[in-house]
């Protein structure tokens, strides 16, 4: 499955045929449980029950997706320790449209731009707006908060927030993305709680 922060579903929309691409299914994250996400280098505590996408061989090991109502409606993606030269999605070198590689020297505006390209090139967003980019500490490191919204091929406006930091040349980031109507706002309290709970190990 194409793993893009919480818009895996959009890739499905583009593919025109869902189902087969959804991957191996979901496991339960229990309320109050502290979980090591992705490759295990980041810990977060879930304030409520969440569904954790089970890993498949097609996944990027530094990225993990969670959802409450399914990826078409909402999702949180954890990027944990993405090293220099890697991408947040699996892609072929021959794809015409590519999500840029992360670089250890990237500043927040460059990471924001990388995310935008992911939504446009991979998610098929036809409009994308940056709503705010401001400094914010993440996991004890100086980082950023990016707010954005995008209109996708299924005519639905979705809204997102990414909070992250580059620590030791690696990217740590949590991205919430959900339908602008209801679902984004509904998942926001849990997202904020998880961002605040995030620790790098």
């Amino acid at each position, binding site marked *: 499955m194409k793993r893009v922060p919480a818009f895996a579903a959009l890739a499905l929309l583009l593919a*025109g045929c*869902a*189902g087969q691409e*959804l991957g191996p*299914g*979901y*496991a*339960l994250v229990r309320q109050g449980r502290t979980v090591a996400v992705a490759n295990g280098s980041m810990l977060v505590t879930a304030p409520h*029950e*969440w*569904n954790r996408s089970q890993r498949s061989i097609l996944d990027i090991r530094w990225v993990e997706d969670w*959802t*409450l*109502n*399914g990826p*078409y*409606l909402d999702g949180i993606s954890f990027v944990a320790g993405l090293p220099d030269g890697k991408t947040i999605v699996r892609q072929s070198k021959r794809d015409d449209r590519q999500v840029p590689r992360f670089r250890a020297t990237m500043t927040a505006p460059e990471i924001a731009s990388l995310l935008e390209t992911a939504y446009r090139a991979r998610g098929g967003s036809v409009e994308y707006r940056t709503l705010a980019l401001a400094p914010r500490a993440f996991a004890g490191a100086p980082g950023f908060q990016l707010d954005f919204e995008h209109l996708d091929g*299924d*005519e*639905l406006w979705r809204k997102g927030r990414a909070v992250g930091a580059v620590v030791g040349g690696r990217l740590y980031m949590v991205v919430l993305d959900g*339908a602008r*109507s*209801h*679902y984004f706002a*509904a998942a926001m309290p849990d997202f904020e709680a998880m961002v605040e709970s995030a620790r790098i190990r």
Partner: protein
Amino acid sequence: MAGRRIAALLLSSLVLSGCVSTRQVADLQFSPPQGDYRLLVLRPDVEVGSVGVGGVTQPRADWTDQARANLVAALRAQQAGRGGTMLVAERRSGVPGVSADEVADVERLQNAVTISVALHRYLGYPLPTKRHRGLDYTLGDEAVQFGRKTGFDYALFLHAEDSFADNKRVALQVLGIAGCFVGFCAPNGGGGGQLAYASLVDLRTGKMVWFNVLTAGSQVAGTKMGDIRSPDGATQMVERLMGRMKPGKAVRAAERSR
């Protein structure tokens, strides 16, 4: 019109024998509408075609018009029997109290929710947090606002399709070709048949409270599904799809304990 794609999704979740089958999911607290309620049927999506050689369904305007009129009439009679009044909005501009854009926004969210229901309730990608929670999907405050502005208690979304095989077609059925694109669609790959699904949104709470899928192979020997081009067949489909609305589990449990 995204209905067709959802239909193709749902179809793969149901056994395509000749039998008539339905599978409904309801909100835990759901009780079927009764008494004095107002129901809005938003752009019912009906399509009837003939399956020709090669397995492609060719749309038939006359059959579609007949079936649509019959289904709406059957639905109206059924809802009246429960005490409800019903408005069928054929166009986005036909809903009182809201603009076409507001209708479109509700439809778009409804579409994404319906895809999610199809994937996670019907297609084998269950979400563990929703286990034993009934349907458990909502259209949120947008639907509540919509209900307030329009004065409706419920919104019903309905998709129904049926197709009838040409004689020549039968020999090719074994190939099971499923090709489906603008104008020419054969999602069931068989010799014609019915597929319908409907969802009910409670506009007072915003929740999608009930969802049902119906399939039937109308051309397979041994089963006879009503022809929705006729009033009787349409009534039969509406009855099968909407007639046996089950209350939610919590409501049923309460009833039992009473």
